[in-house]
């Protein structure tokens, strides 16, 4: 068998997504949390591309493309926010950022 | 299948060997050219006219003690030069040096592999090259190195934009992303080259490309990451021996890559400036013959005693080369190679020439120049080009 079952790709995507969630849940550095989000997005992209292969359509690629662009925009704004937060609070620990509570 | 693998391995070895030698000698050429700009002889001791200097340098760098500072982040510190040189070598893989050739019945391209998105591939790989420098700067755990790394990553991100925008215009004219097809679309005379092609000659984007390429390769006047009077040696302050040599090599390889890119994108690749029917195939012969004659002239009244023989030998070699160019069997692949190398070499010479003439930018000027001048101009050029291309079609 020299061909890869399509479910393997999707399982890989699920595993990566779960690892992204794990990073979000268990990490305390805001930058790492942010990177976990990127990991999740990548996992989803993989499933999009896989579906595009399965249905032999280019649409999945375009979704991936749009996700990438949004991720780039998100990274630009998110990192700017992180910089500002760090400038004001001198911390990167996500548990210290809870002023939205009240 | 087997033949394909064998040929690929042969090509790989040839290209790797030639390229690395060329890079070593590029460094020698640079030292010589700058020396002559500054009216001094340059390397002169090792070999005739210092011709063996690169060999000596290599031996020195390899045998030097590889220092490993105790305070660095070891995995990344060791990984960074590897990334730098690997990414530099990777992009060479898709650059074609000439058209198809036939050797012993097997026909192949003078290129390791052809991707139909070759241009994008080179962009991708070169954007990965930043990591080598950034990680080197960070893992050295040294403030000069860190600042150098920061500067270089900011600079390379900034200049990647005008670079990419400048590339898009010739792509629009040629309507392909494959480097081989790109050259094919510029076949003919000099007015089919993208730099002079109608409806919109890409002179502006060529200049932008070259400027951005200077910045991407951290060359003067954009060598801020390694500004020695501010940052000691920038990101490679803490590096020595082969690790240092890797960065050095990566820089020169990148220079070769972008020069080759400029040649392929704007200057028609291996195409001759005018058709062979009007004698363009005789140009290399004439050049080498003249070079040989000059060598003979110098041999007749030598500045040094030894030169009587070395110059004569050189002249003979040149004349032989000139003769080889006349041989019809090799002409089919030697001529394109000649043109390709001549154009690439010209741009490389410009690199060196500018290093010998221009001062360095201030950092804010550097960023302002990229964002406030190059980027808008590239955008405008792209707009005009796309409008004209759409108009024509």
């Amino acid at each position: 068998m020299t061909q890869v079952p399509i479910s393997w790709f999707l399982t890989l995507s699920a595993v990566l997504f779960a690892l992204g969630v794990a990073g979000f849940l268990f990490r305390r550095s805001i930058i790492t949390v942010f990177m976990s989000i990127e990991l999740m997005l990548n996992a989803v992209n993989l499933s999009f591309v896989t579906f595009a292969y399965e249905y032999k359509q280019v649409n999945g690629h375009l979704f991936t493309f749009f996700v990438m662009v949004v991720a780039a925009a998100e990274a630009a704004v998110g990192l700017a926010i992180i910089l500002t937060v760090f400038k004001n609070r001198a911390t990167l620990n996500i548990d210290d950022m809870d002023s939205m509570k009240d | 299948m087997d033949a394909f693998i064998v040929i690929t391995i042969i090509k790989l070895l040839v290209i790797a060997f030639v390229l690395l030698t060329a890079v070593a000698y590029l460094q020698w050429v640079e030292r010589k050219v700058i020396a002559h700009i500054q009216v001094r002889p340059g390397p002169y001791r090792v070999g005739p006219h210092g011709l063996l200097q690169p060999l000596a340098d290599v031996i020195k760098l390899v045998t030097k003690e590889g220092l490993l500072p105790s305070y660095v982040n070891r995995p990344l510190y060791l990984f960074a030069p590897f990334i730098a040189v690997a990414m530099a070598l990777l992009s060479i893989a898709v650059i074609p040096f000439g058209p198809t050739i036939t050797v012993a019945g097997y026909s192949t391209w003078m290129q390791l592999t052809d991707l139909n998105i070759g241009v994008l591939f080179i962009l991708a790989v070169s954007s990965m090259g930043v990591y080598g420098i950034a990680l080197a700067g960070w893992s050295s755990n040294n403030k000069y190195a860190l600042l150098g790394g920061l500067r270089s990553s900011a600079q390379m991100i900034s200049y990647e934009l005008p670079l990419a925008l400048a590339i898009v215009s010739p792509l629009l004219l040629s309507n392909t992303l494959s480097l081989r097809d790109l050259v094919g679309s510029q076949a003919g005379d000099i007015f089919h080259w993208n730099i002079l092609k109608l409806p919109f000659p890409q002179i502006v984007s060529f200049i932008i490309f070259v400027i951005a390429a200077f910045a991407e390769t951290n060359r003067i006047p954009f060598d801020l990451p390694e500004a020695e009077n501010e940052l000691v040696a920038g990101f490679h302050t803490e590096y020595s021996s082969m690790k240092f040599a890797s960065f050095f090599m990566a820089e020169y390889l990148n220079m070769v890559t972008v020069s080759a890119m400029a040649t392929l994108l704007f200057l028609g690749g291996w195409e001759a400036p005018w058709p062979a029917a009007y004698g363009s195939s005789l140009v290399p012969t004439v050049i080498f013959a003249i070079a040989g004659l000059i060598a003979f002239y110098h041999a007749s009244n030598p500045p040094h005693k030894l030169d009587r023989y070395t110059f004569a030998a050189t002249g003979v070699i040149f004349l032989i080369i000139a003769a080889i160019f006349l041989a019809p069997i090799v002409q089919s692949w030697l001529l394109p190679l000649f043109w390709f190398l001549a154009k690439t070499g010209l741009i490389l010479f410009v690199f060196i020439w500018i290093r010998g003439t221009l001062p360095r930018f201030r950092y804010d000027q550097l960023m302002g120049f990229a964002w406030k001048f190059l980027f808008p101009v590239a955008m405008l050029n792209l707009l005009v080009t796309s409008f004209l291309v759409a108009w024509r079609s």
Partner: protein
Amino acid sequence: MQLWLIPIFPLAGFLINGLFGKRFSKGLVNVFAIGAVLLSFAWVLKTISGLGDLTSPYTEHYFTWIQSGAFTINWDFSADRLTEVMLLVVTGVGLLIHIYSIGYMAHEHGPHHGGYYRFFSYMNLFMFFMLVLVLGANYLVLFVGWEGVGLSSYLLIGFYFTKKFATDAGNKAFIVNRIGDFGFSLAMFYIVKTFGTLDFNSVFSRAAGIPESTLTLIGLLLLVGATGKSAQIPLYVWLPDAMAGPTPVSALIHAATMVTAGVYMTARSWPIYTHAPAALETIAVIGIATAFFAATIGMAQNDIKKVFAYSTVSQLGYMFVGVGVGAFSTGIYHLVTHAFFKALLFLGSGAVIHSLSGEQDLRNMGGLRTKIPWTFWTMVCAWIAISGVPLTSGFFSKDAILLAAYQHAPWIYWVGTITAGITAFYVSRAMFLTFFGSYRGHEHHIHESPAVMTLPLAVLALLSLAGGYLFPVPAFLSNLFPPMEEVENSSLMAISVAFGLGGIALAYLMYAVKPALADSFVSGIKGLYTLVYNKYFVDEIYDATVVKPLVGGSRWVLWRGVDVGIIDGLANGIATASRGVGGVLRLVQSGNIRSYAAWVVFGSVALMVALGMLAGGAR
């Protein structure tokens, strides 16, 4: 013909002066303001010459404004002969008054009080809305202009907004007009319900097939709107107060153009009214009552502008009589001539006030005949015109109305004739008190107004005298309205002329020859005089019967009871309840992002479990 160009010029003038006028010099403001009206006037002339005979209305469609199912309202302008008459009056008289304003407002400056550019931008805004009103091809576009002129009128009455009486007068005008507009809106709702459209052409062409009761209701509701805008009983109270604005405003808006909008609207709606005789009769009664009633008040006023204000109310009554007796064209005829001589009277009184540096009380004037001869002689033209002296413009139009009224119901003719006598009397009284006798004021620097003011006066004087010949409106409009019987009754004409001349003579006797006679006469009928002097206490009655109960009811029932008790109580109760629930939910909001993420994961896991079970069940 590009009808839209007509109103667009004043709008442009308004925008330019309103937005940038602060930085302009007065000259530049003048250029834009006057230029806008001038261009508009020129375009009106070109349009009229271009439209030619115009036997059927000419309509231009611009865009669909409102579309809801089958119901469509287009933004259309249309022009017929009635529109042409109105356009000429509005832009022509408007242009003269704009020019006059240059001189009158010359001393206005400063950002708070005067605001030269503010005045002219409001005037241009008014012109814009008035032209939209006149040009509109359906009731809603007309209503836009209708409300727009109300707005600009409000802005201009309250022009001196640092003075309380001015702002109060503005508020009063606005609020009283709201009552009328309420009736107008209801009328439009009924029209939509009955006809399914607001377009003039389709409404009027179908009016014949509608039950009379419905048309009467619509007609009466439209009349409510008209009484508000045209200051008829019982909604006339705002107009005399509106004299708080600058005098050119009084001349333009509260004499010549805006207040005639009600007349225009009722005349425009004649197909509805001709099928609703009861409504038409109501118009005539209200008109004649207003005419008489206001004229009597006018006799006892001492403020020169108040006299002319009540005179305006009275003359508007005449126009309503003309419409109400079915002689629509005579109403419009009087509208035109009235625009000339009443604008002239106001502008003349403005010139008097201007030369006396703001004095408005008749008792402090006198003997100005020689000091400001230009003003005097032009006002004389208006005086004889309004008094109905033969061969002046007022004579023709008033006489046409009275003749039509006699045909309809003789008692209206007699009341109208008496009113004409009273009108002649009080206008003559104002003239004698102002220009004859000896000067009773304190001002020493009485000066004639500049040419920029006297020139429009001269033009208007010419029109007041000759307007009757120059603009034979009834003949011009004859094919638009239902035909009237042509009557020639020279005895009736002679009677009304006699009443007019008698009024002048009486005033001459009482105020020029023997001034003491007036005082003794007043003291003789003291009770009646007090009643008339205080305008029959109408304002006070309104205050006691409408305003006080409304204010009290609002304060005690609506505010304390409904608002504080019920609405606030409800809102506060909901808020308290939400806060209680929120207090519980707040425990979930720990502020810790990772906790939130855990909740999200929990939610997705729960969702997937549910999905899996559903899918499993389905299989």
